[in-house]
């Protein structure tokens, strides 16, 4: 069964093409790294699948549903910046997710908050940038979604919390769900990845299994990335 299908997905900003005729098939049960240099179209691709951008051409489907109301209840999205109202308390954000998403587990969210030492009664504006990112990641990962779209999930958090987050991603792994992670911190994340997508200039340069790539080149994904996208 196909979880995510992108057909000829294209996004143009004026004369600049951010994403060009991307065709992609993702099956459930995978953790996929979306890798590429700055401006390669990673965030654009994620936003198109999340329904935050209208494609210039083509279409994305989640479990056969075109991006829209049906796909939104299947997708859990984490943007690369703070998107919650800063006047909100953490517990208010949890209540909001609980109200709108049937697959959201408030117990799971509270458990993760406790492990990361975040008080749910705190207002978001009183939290550090890293703590805010952790809260948003917790909210996204406390859902039993089919597709997780994580845009730079560990960029702003300390290395100790990073380890916890990666363990959390693995523990949340389900056979009927897939996780698409966009990141620059490849060395931190490559051990949990099943597959990688290399994006360059808005096009998919490679979509392959991590083990296959490592065996072929006898190098880490981080080293391969540095070679492929060498400036």
């Amino acid at each position, binding site marked *: 069964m196909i979880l995510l299908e992108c057909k000829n997905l294209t996004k143009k900003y004026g004369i600049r093409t951010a994403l060009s005729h991307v065709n992609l098939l993702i099956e459930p049960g995978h953790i996929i790294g979306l890798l590429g240099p700055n401006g390669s179209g990673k965030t654009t691709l994620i936003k198109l699948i999340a329904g935050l951008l209208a494609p210039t051409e083509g279409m994305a489907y989640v479990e056969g549903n075109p991006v829209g109301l049906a796909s939104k209840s299947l997708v859990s999205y984490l943007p690369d910046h*703070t998107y919650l109202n800063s006047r909100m308390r953490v517990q208010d954000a949890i209540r909001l997710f609980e109200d709108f998403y049937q697959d959201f587990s408030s117990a799971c969210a509270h458990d993760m908050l406790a492990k990361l030492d975040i008080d749910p009664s705190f207002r978001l504006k009183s939290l550090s940038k890293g703590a805010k990112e952790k809260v948003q990641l917790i909210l996204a990962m406390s859902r039993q979604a089919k597709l997780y779209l994580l845009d730079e999930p560990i960029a702003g958090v300390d290395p100790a919390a990073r380890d916890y987050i990666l363990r959390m991603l693995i523990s949340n792994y389900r056979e009927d769900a897939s996780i698409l992670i966009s990141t620059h911190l490849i060395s931190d994340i490559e051990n949990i990845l099943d597959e990688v997508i290399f994006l360059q200039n808005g096009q998919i340069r490679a979509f392959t299994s991590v083990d296959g790539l490592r065996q072929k080149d006898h190098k880490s994904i981080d080293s391969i990335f540095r070679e492929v996208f060498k400036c």
Partner: protein
Amino acid sequence: MLGKLIKYEWKACYKVLAALNLTLVLITVIGCLILQAIPSTEENIFFLAVLFIMLSALSISAFNLTTQIYIYFRFYKNLFTAEGYLMHTLPVTPLQLFHSKLIVGYFWFIVNTLLSFFCLAVLGWASRIFRLENTRTELQFLFQYTIGGSPGKFILLLLAATLASGFSSILMGYLSILLGQLVEKYKLGAAIGFYIALYLVSQVLSSLLMIIPTTFMAVADDMGFYGEFASCFYGNLLLWLIAAWVLFGCAYYAACFFLARRRVNLD
């Protein structure tokens, strides 16, 4: 889902808007106390009343404008800035998002406008101007001559005008923001530009619509029924204005309905 969206919209903006309205009440109370403290000789009453009511009307208008701007700002910030990343990924339709903002925004706009009128009336009462027998008679004559009815009819017309103008004003702001989203760059600047353009067009069209009751008046004058028509001229004018606001409101709503259904582009 619409109910839940309204609940969260209400929770997000009630503190700011309630504070604005409470400040309005506070200003009125202070104004009343000052007016009551002034000795009531007939010579100074008119001067002080007019001065105070003018000043209060200015400050109340400022609060009204602030409420309006806050409602527009909230619509823009919550749907088209960082917060939009959450709102547009919730499992709700774009129209549910739009309607939740419209319902809450309209409610606060009406509350604020009615409170403004109430505060002005209270200040007028506190100025003791209406307690003078000749003023009361003059006012009754004024209502009879201008709107062809009692103060009660005037209040009903004012209420209808508030509901209609609120509907039109809120939607004009929302439509400007939605039109601004169609532009590639400088979306906020474009929204302000669209607002100014829509405001000018609506003013010109309203003025043109005002020609109709004026024409009736002129025809009536020619036919020798001037007195009957003149007595309710301003009432008729207000009715036409209400009709114009309802008409504009419906047109803005139709345009918003079409634009809000489109897929967003959160750059």
